């Protein structure tokens, strides 16, 4: 169940934002896209999610070409930078949204949806907050609800856009561990966008260092430190 992006190109207006980016995510692997702002990492994530369209290149999941598959049919879970929780829905309604929107033929029964929602609430250790609204949650709680909502559709791939950037430093540290633990528990391949090298080093199995629309180096944290391909990678990891 590996995912591949092959030679992805994307331009906005006259500016080339992605210039032939290729990336492989193995099953259960945690990949971080690390780079400064403007390096194209969020654009790449949006293309993988299907929220943006590549000018050229292919996306392949498990041998299937999903380049032209609409976002909703990809079955990828997405955690947005500001979580994008549904304001007017409770925590439980947020988490169950993906299940409730399934066509009748494949939708689980009401009871099963409720059971699964409760299971995810317990997984994120917020079993008592089912009936709260997003505005009544702390930043860390919102982040975990966003995570549960993405995982509840049993995604084939989990995508996270700067999932810790809206949190203060202390919460950020403690949530890192729980995000990694959740991801391991579910065993879903994950792509996380970040500009924070400590975050990438701490969480990722592999890091794709991005700069000016290209992946400069794609390797494990250990190898990146041992053999940085360029001075910029060396500087980034120093």
């Amino acid at each position, binding site marked *: 169940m590996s995912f591949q992006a092959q030679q992805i190109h994307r331009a906005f207006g006259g500016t080339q934002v992605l210039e032939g980016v290729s990336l492989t995510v193995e099953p259960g692997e945690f990949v971080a896209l690390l780079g400064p702002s403007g390096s194209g990492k969020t654009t790449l994530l949006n293309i993988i*999610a*299907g*929220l943006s369209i590549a000018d050229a290149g292919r996306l392949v999941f498990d041998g299937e070409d999903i380049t032209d598959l609409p*976002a*909703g*049919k990809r*079955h*990828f*879970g*997405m955690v*947005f930078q*500001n979580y*994008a*929780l*549904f*304001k*007017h829905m409770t925590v439980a309604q947020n988490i169950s*949204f*993906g299940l409730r*929107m*399934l066509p009748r033929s494949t939708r689980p029964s009401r009871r099963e949806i409720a059971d699964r929602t409760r299971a995810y609430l317990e997984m994120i250790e917020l079993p008592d907050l089912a009936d709260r*609204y997003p*505005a*009544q949650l702390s930043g860390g709680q919102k982040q975990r609800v966003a995570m549960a*909502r*993405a995982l509840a*559709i049993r995604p084939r791939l989990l995508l996270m856009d700067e999932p810790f950037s809206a949190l203060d430093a202390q919460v950020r540290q403690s949530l890192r561990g729980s995000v990694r633990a959740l991801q391991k528990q579910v065993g879903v391949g994950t792509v996380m966008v970040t500009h924070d090298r400590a975050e990438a080093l701490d969480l990722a199995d592999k890091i794709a260092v991005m700069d000016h629309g290209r992946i400069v180096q794609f390797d494990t944290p250990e190898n990146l430190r041992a053999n940085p391909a360029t001075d910029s990678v060396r500087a980034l990891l120093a």
Partner: protein
Amino acid sequence: MARRFLIALAVGFLALMVLAPLIAIFHRAFADGAGMYLAAISEPETLAAMRLTVIAALVVLPVNVIFGIAAAWAIARYRFFGRRALLILIEVPFAVSPIVAGLCFLLIYGAYGPVGAALEPYGIQLMFNLTGIVLVSLFVTCPFVMREVLPVLMVSGAEEERAALGLGANGWQIFRHIVLPNISWGLAYGVVLTTARAMGEFGAVSVVSGAIRGETMTLPLQIELLYNDYNATGAFAAATVLTALALVTLVLRGLLDRFGAQRKASI
């Protein structure tokens, strides 16, 4: 001192300019007794005018709700050629005098206008009937829903819509579960304003209605007609009905305000 003066000024002005005329309407309507009042508002012509006014408003409302949401959506979510022009164009009905609007419609859709003349051989007449009244009312009220919905759409929801899309919701589900709840209060205001204006419009409707008694007279036109006929009781009795309709929409708006504020506070 200054405070008292300001309050007195505000209250005095409103009393003279708003409250006194309102009371006068009801006072004059009942001046000849409740029996005369009841007789006046149950006149067949007046009843026909009420019916026409309500029917026209009921046709105008859904059309403008659909158009208003569609236009607001397009302007809020997409960048396209002519977007700014659309924004300005939609304000035109606010700026143009309604009577001018009525004349413009007559020029185009009347029997001697290009569209009216083209349709005439088929026996289709657009002006001087319900169609004409609906058309100009649409023109006059088309900015309301869009103006109320657009700001709400601009500040909220784009990310939520993307999230819903990624979770597998289709276009209709996104609209039903994400967009509609987000815009509901703006939409409700737009509906109230559109209804009030559609029922109260005089200038534009007077040009295209054709003024056939008991057939193409809306309530505002009927009121003027009765008044010009020296039927003051009839005119003021009909006016109380129109005023009551307007007050109902105002009360609805007030309730929405209160309920909306509470809802927001509780979330």
